């Protein structure tokens, strides 16, 4: 019973766990993209870059100022969110009413600028982020060792995702948001400050990316390239899930992370492409995405 299809169970569970952790990041990022897309009709190409900014801010806070992980976990999303609000107010706002493609192009330009600045300052190599003391070591589950930090990432990101889902689908604030998505003019007529809501939505979406960045910092190397590496996979995740459903993007993100982990065990050659292959298959049979509706 120590093998699964000829793979030692330790290695199997380890890869699966790593896949799940990746899936958590996919879920948090695609969730942010879906929220932003719903309200602003913009595909935020800068999402990956802002995730990278989140990781770098955490790294700088720790290594330059000595601010610990927990404070970063709170401060960095706020900072990235504030940056997002600034971007929305000074730039994205002007694209209102134009073809959606311009939003993609503008945020692509922003992604290049942000990535370029960090590459200029730190080169392309990664910076290590020291784990907080509490998370060192791992739990012995009998059949595998579960690193404490990975367990924390999975639980924390699931809580964040579900809380976001709850706020949007079950609270009054979420109802305003959803109404604003459907018909902004009507919501405006009811006396709700829609422009402010749009700014805050964007800030929240990218704040989520910043939070994911902080959580990712101790797992991956903090590098200027980490954002662009992940954002394209997240785009594929979004195409697979369809951006229409909040819960759908969470489930799709997690599932694809797991599948990626599994391919690493059984057929490593395609582990970098499996998400795209699945995307192609989904496009063949369900062009609108698994949870999507054509808009």
């Amino acid at each position, binding site marked *: 019973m120590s093998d699964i299809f000829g793979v030692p169970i330790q290695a199997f569970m380890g890869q699966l766990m790593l896949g799940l952790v990746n899936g958590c990041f996919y879920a948090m990022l695609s969730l942010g993209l879906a929220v932003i*897309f719903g309200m602003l009709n913009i*595909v935020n190409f800068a999402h990956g870059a802002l995730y990278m900014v989140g990781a770098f801010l955490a790294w700088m806070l720790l290594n330059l100022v000595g601010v610990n992980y927990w404070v970063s976990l709170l401060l960095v999303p706020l900072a990235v969110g504030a940056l997002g609000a600034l971007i929305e107010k000074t*730039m994205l706002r*002007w*694209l209102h009413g*134009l073809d*959606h*493609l*311009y939003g*993609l*192009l*503008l945020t*692509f*330009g*922003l*992604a*290049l*600028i*942000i*990535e*370029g*600045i960090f*590459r*200029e300052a730190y080169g392309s190599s990664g910076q290590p982020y020291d784990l907080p003391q509490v998370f060192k070591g791992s739990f012995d589950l009998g059949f595998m060792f579960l690193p404490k930090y990975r367990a924390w990432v999975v639980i924390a990101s699931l809580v964040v995702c579900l809380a976001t889902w709850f706020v949007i689908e079950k609270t009054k604030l979420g109802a305003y948001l959803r109404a604003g998505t459907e018909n902004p003019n009507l919501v405006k007529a009811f006396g709700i400050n829609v422009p402010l809501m749009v700014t805050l939505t964007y800030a929240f979406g990218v704040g989520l990316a910043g939070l994911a960045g902080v959580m990712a910092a101790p797992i991956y190397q903090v590098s200027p390239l980490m954002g*662009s590496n992940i954002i*394209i*996979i997240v*785009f*594929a995740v*979004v*195409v697979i899930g369809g951006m229409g459903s909040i819960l759908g993007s969470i489930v799709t993100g997690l599932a694809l992370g797991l599948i990626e982990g599994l391919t690493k065990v059984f057929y490593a*050659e395609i582990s*970098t*492409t499996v*998400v*795209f*292959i699945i*995307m*192609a298959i989904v*496009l*063949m049979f369900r*062009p609108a995405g698994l949870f999507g509706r054509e808009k």
Partner: protein
Amino acid sequence: MNRTWLVFVVLALAGLVAPFVGYPIFLMKVLCFALFASAFNLLIGFTGLLSFGHAMFFGFAAYVSGHAAKVWGLTPEVAILLGTLSAGALGVVSGWLAVRRQGIYFAMVTLALAQMVYFICVQAPFTYAEDGIQSIPRGKLLGVVDLANDRVMYYLVFAVFMAGLLGIYRIIHSPFGQILKSIRENEARALSLGYDVDRYKHLAFVLSASLAGLAGATKSLAFGLATLTDVSWQMSGEVVLMTLLGGMGTILGPALGATIVVTMQNYLSSLGSMVTIIMGVTFVACVLLFRRGIVGEIQFRLGRKA
């Protein structure tokens, strides 16, 4: 109409004397990217489809023609043809998938498919991963004309560029091109008039992919190099920038945009990552202030239609 032909004649003359004025190597680079951007423009400017994965055609064709010339020892014209055809074939498959989604999703699907091609190129043995295919021989055109001389090679590249540009001009002024424009303007109406919109989009995609492949294949012979840079998403972004800067939906805009971007990269290459930042700023400035692009703005000021 006559004025357009005048522009083409001036362009041809300028191209003929150019290698006696500038560096042929630099000019070849400009021309290859100008053709690449013009091919991309066929899709965004005249069909309204934003592909964010055109590097896959450019880069894949570069690999194929490089392999054909170096390993199989084929003559340059056959190598370029093979590269172009393989990009077209890639366009058939990826376009078939991508036209199933519209607008913003189309951009994401093409980006993701291009990334898949990138990863395949990272792993495939014939691309030599990080090194790329190096010192690809230019060979002898039709087995007769030796292309080793930069100026001779330049004229081949220039001929390919002019042929490509004229081909694009021909396509957009054909009945087929008019239907593409009608899809760009109002897809639902084109559909209701009985046009099989997806098929037209697919065909436009394949044509654009093949021409992008032609540019890539020519590039790999001219510079003897095919690398992962050519298939990367950054390259896809660059071609978008060239087209946006020059003017989407204009004939000469993308070529002008390519000239500017390549010149900029050439002179600023010592600045490293600053180039990326400058490109990003250009992107943002174009989208916010300058959506018609340079040629588009000039045409608008002159009050002429494209």
